């Protein structure tokens, strides 16, 4: 029986199928949020309030002609979209969402000491695949986009990883499941016996969440950090040569990455799938990550695009020091409590 439930939770819920459907939902939420902020209506036509539009887009792309440029480095060019889709999907399996054997448990499909490192590693591999995708297309705009991706990584990757260490120090574990458990426990403890130190931890965690959101904007190539695919400058940059099925995979991969990013944000800083009884974890997960997606979309609608050099400078001036401060505060707090 254990194998059947494992297969179901890998393939159907909360595994691949659920994540893909949820990714399309997040895509719709993001498009609708941005549209309303920009005084537009957003998708309207397909399904109620256009909710099926992201799905329709994928279907349309699957039906389109798939062109591989003659000059492209074929194996890499074909492999990159698969990696860009599969890597974030694999990473989500390690994040606590909902157990299918027990309604009120959020134990992930796999959890072990150090899975946080694995998730961050997979996230970096996605960036590498993006670079390869742009580079292997042998297109000038693709190459410029790829170098911009690599440069941007230099700017945000270190703060991104540093910030993730903070909660791990406080929880005393490198397993995301344990971090979420610790967060749930400390909130219950705090409500039972409020203390000054509890408030201090909450403040540091929220600041961490804010800085982490900025890093995620860069990781997800959202404005103001979308210079790797800047349409008006380099014609969608690294994905310029992709079409048809591969572009569908890239689009889906991007949506899955948004789910992964908001899932990481909620799990590390906002209590993840944990929430007051008797609401099952899946509801908390959907609620929290959807709010994260809306916050990310809101931020991306509020700015103009940075130039790559401005972004690198900005990240090292503000993001990196803030991340270091956050870790130091966490270490100090972990000594006190």
């Amino acid at each position: 029986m254990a194998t059947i439930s494992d297969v179901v939770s890998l393939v159907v819920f909360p595994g691949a199928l659920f994540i893909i459907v949820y990714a399309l939902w997040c895509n719709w939420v993001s498009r609708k949020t941005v549209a309303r902020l920009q005084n537009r209506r957003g998708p309207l036509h397909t399904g109620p309030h256009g909710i099926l539009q992201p799905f329709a887009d994928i279907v349309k792309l699957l039906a389109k002609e798939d062109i591989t440029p003659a000059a492209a480095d074929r194996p890499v060019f074909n492999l990159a979209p698969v990696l860009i889709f599969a890597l974030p999907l694999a990473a989500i399996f390690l994040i606590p969402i909902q157990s299918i054997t027990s309604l009120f448990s959020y134990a992930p499909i796999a959890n072990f000491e150090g899975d946080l490192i694995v998730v961050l590693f997979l996230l970096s591999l996605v960036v590498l695949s993006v670079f390869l995708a742009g580079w292997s297309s042998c297109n000038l705009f693709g190459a410029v986009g790829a170098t911009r991706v690599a440069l941007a990584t230099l700017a945000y990757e270190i703060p991104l990883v540093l910030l993730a260490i903070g909660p791990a120090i406080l929880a005393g574990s490198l397993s995301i499941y344990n971090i979420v458990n610790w967060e749930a426990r400390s909130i219950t403890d705090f409500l039972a016996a409020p203390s000054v130190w509890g408030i201090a931890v909450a403040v540091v965690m929220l600041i961490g969440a804010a800085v982490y959101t900025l890093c995620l904007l860069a990781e997800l190539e959202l404005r103001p950090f979308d210079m790797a695919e800047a349409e008006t400058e380099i014609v969608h940059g690294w994905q310029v040569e992709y079409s048809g099925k591969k572009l569908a995979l890239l689009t889906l991969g991007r949506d899955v990455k948004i789910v992964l990013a908001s899932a990481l944000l909620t799990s590390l800083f906002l209590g993840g799938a944990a929430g007051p009884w008797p609401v099952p974890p899946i509801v908390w997960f959907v609620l929290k990550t959807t709010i994260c997606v809306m916050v990310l979309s809101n931020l991306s609608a509020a700015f103009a695009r940075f130039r790559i050099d401005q972004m690198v400078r900005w990240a090292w001036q503000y993001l990196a020091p803030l991340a270091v401060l956050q870790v130091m505060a966490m270490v100090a707090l972990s000594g006190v409590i």
Partner: protein
Amino acid sequence: MDVEASDREFTIPVGPQHPALKEPASFLFKVDGEVVVDVEPRLGYNHRGIEKAMEARTYIQDLYLVERICGICSNAHQTLYAMNVEEVAGITIPPRAKYLRTFVHELERIHSHLLWVGVAAHEIGFDTLFYYVWRDREVVLDLLEEISGNRVNYAFNAIGGVRRDVPSEKIPKFQKALDVLAERTKYYHGIAASESTILERASGVGYCSKADMLRLCGVGPHARASGVAKDTRHDHPYLAYDEVPFNVITNDGGDVLANVLVRIGELYESVGICKYVLDHLPDGPIREKYSPLAKIPEGEATNMVEAQRGEDIHYILSKGDNKPYRYKIRAPTMANIPSLMVKLKGGYIADIPIVLAGIDPCFSCTDRMVFVDESKDKVWDMNDEELRRYGIRWYQNGNNK
């Protein structure tokens, strides 16, 4: 060029088709990493032979052809054409027509400048601002539609005056719409002057000094953004501009931010001019009689107007027929290309779109024929007699088969 440099440099084509260019033109950028080393512009993808086509049509037909030189400055070109024909024909237009022409001319400037602010925002990736500006642009488009019946090509001018009157009962409504525009302009001025990502992307980008601008004969808001106080409306007043008070907006910045601020400043001025014109609209007829088949006496005329993008010059030569013998057009974008090259060199790839868009380019106005022999590095023009003989020779040799 030494070997090391040529290894690092590569060429990026922007155009003829590129999302940052709304019309076909080609710029070959030699870049070193992200920095632009050299630019080679190539125009002429959109040459439509309008000057030649005008010679085959009557003055009335040309009135509607000349409007189609450019979708955005349609009224500027048409007004200028009408002024030219009227000068040769010796027609003086009634004062009310003069004011109405000024009114539509300025409304067109408002619509064009708002369009530009939106496009500029889009080029630096600020789509939210783009959608906001274009929503408010609908106000002025509705105004134009109410006055002329059309949103873009108004066909507002007639030879001898204007085609439609503005009824006095509609004036309060127009005033109200202009108030809305003034208020929104104020809001955008605040955004452009204070939003940090806009300042990061616009300030200091695409710099051209006043001396360079004067040397390379830039025109319009592009030149005024480098501190050159040149405005045809002020320097050579036409229509009602000698009676209407307004300021020439300049900025010493010389960069993209200065371009934005100059254009937003001009939006205020244009709204002011429109309001003044509506308040001081003279009574009387709106056009002089002119027969569609009338022949126009021999003569020539050159006039200029301040189109949205800068000084627009037309020349007409009449040989006493009902068609122009020669018509020559110099649209403002043409004059701005040399100074644009200065702005592009030394910048980043990321800044190419916004700097290109900074002159508000309109290539369909600009394109013209020049003969180029690349192998001999020779460029020449032909006059109509040479061109006629060249054509005869070409067909005699059977090249057309």
